[in-house]
């Protein structure tokens, strides 16, 4: 075999995936490996601190952030299956704006962090991962991915090349699904209306499969779809991309 440098990638699994969606994490590892990356898993990693940060507990978020900075200090690239958690890493320099030493380390961390699809398209320069998934699907653009990471394109480029997948437009795709972390419980009655409207739009798209790139949004939307007993399947984009023959690995 020809000798070439493998891209060294550290998986930032996210706490939601580690606790509830390990299949997604496994799919991320397998896709990256298939695309020629050497994936490692820094064992010191925990939660990125976003729940504390967004709730107004800056100091407690800093504790999580320091641990993450230490854990990924030696990584070349950090890849995570969540636009929101990646955006939180990008927020670390702001979090340490009054501590120059930590700020510097936070900037280094932020600069090497990529959301999963963003890494494949913009760093590996691959748009066709060879996936096959026959289905009529629509895609939910997560707010933090499009507005904080400003990644609006990568998931669509990848999905366009999935064989058999018909991607249908989603009305009001730019509207939040109502997750918002603690918002979903603190403002439960408002969140409920938001997720219901999102599901109405998914139904109107005639898709039988909803794809997104963030487990937070998926947990919310799927949780509501299942509660209402709607016949719509919900998948993370890594689960779609890690297929070789008709929806299977």
């Amino acid at each position, binding site marked *: 075999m020809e000798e070439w440098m493998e891209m060294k990638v550290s998986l930032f699994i996210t706490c939601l995936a580690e606790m509830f969606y390990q299949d997604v994490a496994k799919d991320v590892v397998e896709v990256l490996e298939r695309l020629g990356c050497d994936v490692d898993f820094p064992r010191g990693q925990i939660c990125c601190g976003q729940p504390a940060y967004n709730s107004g507990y800056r100091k407690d978020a800093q504790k*999580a952030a320091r641990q993450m900075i230490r854990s990924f200090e030696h990584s070349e690239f950090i890849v995570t299956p969540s636009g929101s958690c990646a955006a939180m890493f990008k927020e670390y320099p702001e979090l340490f704006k009054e501590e120059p030493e930590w700020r510097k380390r936070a900037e280094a961390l932020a600069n090497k962090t990529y959301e999963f699809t963003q890494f494949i398209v913009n760093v590996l320069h691959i748009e066709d991962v060879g996936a096959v998934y026959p289905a009529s699907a629509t895609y939910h653009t997560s707010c933090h991915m499009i507005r904080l990471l400003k990644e609006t394109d990568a998931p669509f480029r990848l999905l366009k090349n999935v064989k058999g997948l018909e991607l249908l437009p989603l009305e009001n795709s730019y509207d939040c699904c109502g997750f918002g972390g603690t918002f979903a419980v603190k*403002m439960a009655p408002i969140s409920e209306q938001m997720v219901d409207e999102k599901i109405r739009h998914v139904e109107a798209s005639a898709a039988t499969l909803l794809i997104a790139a963030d487990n937070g949004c998926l947990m919310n939307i799927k*949780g*509501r779809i299942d509660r209402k007993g709607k016949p719509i399947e919900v998948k993370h984009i890594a689960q779609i991309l890690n297929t070789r023959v008709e929806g299977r690995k």
Partner: protein
Amino acid sequence: MPMKIGEKPFFGRVDDALEKTFMRTAMASAQDRLRGRKLDATVRDEQIGDWEEWRSAGEEIRRHTLENLDYYLNQLSENFSRKGGHVYFADTAEDATRYIQEVAKKKNAKKVTKAKSMVTEEIGLNEALEEIGCQVFETDLAEYILQIDDHDRPSHIVVPSLHKNKEQIRDTFRDKAGYTGTEEPRELTAFARSQLREVFLEADIGITGCNFAVAESGTISLVTNEGNANMVTTYPDTQISVMGMERLVPTWEELDVMVNLLSRSAVGQKITTYVTNLTPQLEENSVDAPKEFHLVILDAGRSNALGTEFQSALHCIRCAACVNVCPVYRHIGGHAYGSIYQGPIGAVLSPILGGYDEYGELPFASSLCAACSEACPVRIPLHEQLIRHRENYVAQKGKMSEKLAMKAFGIGASTPSLFQGAVKGLPAIMKPLVKDDGISSGPGPMKLWTAVREFPVPEKNNFRSWFKSHKQEGES
């Protein structure tokens, strides 16, 4: 407090709003319409070039002005006075209304006409004038509708009557003003116009807000569509304009940029039907200028934000672009915010002006989706300011249970062994809740989650073990 709307606590107001399904459908379609029109006049309008450059220019102008606010306020005040106008700096809403009451008394005013102005809503000017026996007439169509509907409150800073549809407006006109026509907007408008025509001619004082004041010339600029502001400022001998202390620009050159940003962002127009620029002009034989022109410059809590992380909230030009994209506003409407300033900017501004006791919940009424920050024509980082408010709020008024939970989170999150212990222990803790491969109810915060949605079942297997053996397989 005049800025405040309603007496119920926040969640009571939210429940009320969610019940009004008709209002909510109207809100959602109005939002879609306003959003589309804004995009057509901004990012999709090729004639203006790069919209992002316009936003940068707007941001820079506002930042520069606020950083030199004392200088420009002084310049504005000098130029306005030099041309014969009277300037009054009001520290509080009460100072402002007292000054205006005094002017009205001195003029022995009986009838006052008003153009649309949120700042006069903020200070409760109508009530203050009615108190001293003046009749106040709102002449902006939306404000007129609200006024005759027993002083209903605004639900949107640009379209105050957004929560009413044409049938409701027809009924209001019929019940309160003897209207006999249909719900046809043209017919409704013609009716309001005929009602107001006489009033314009009889008014003793005309009162306006101020979209922008131009410091270099002492000019008040009003950006409007109905023409009523011109009537309000032309007929009466006395004019009073009320402005928030931050609403000024250095020169006409910046005014040009700001009017573009405002018209396009607020209503999707390249320019509004009228941009009325008024400078005091006290020549004896002047026929169409008021003989007396007062400018009330209002602080009322604004200076609380100066020099703090909230200073950029004062960059706001009240276009409501953030309101028009907010998914929370979409569902609860304006009144649920309990402030005349609603939506994302309302959730940032209301606690600055009115404090956390009254408006502390508002910064939490956001999923932090950042649609507001993306829409703002002067790039106020609204969603970040909501987080700053949350930080202040929990420091001052946070619940002990939440503080302890977050402390535990901080300790757990900085101690990998504890975090791993929690991840491993989770399936066992949650096991009693699992029924038919799902979790449909649970205690504490889970109760709120599962009231609406299923909760995912924690993974029994350990990802880290899988990863280890997966790597070993790869090597063998």
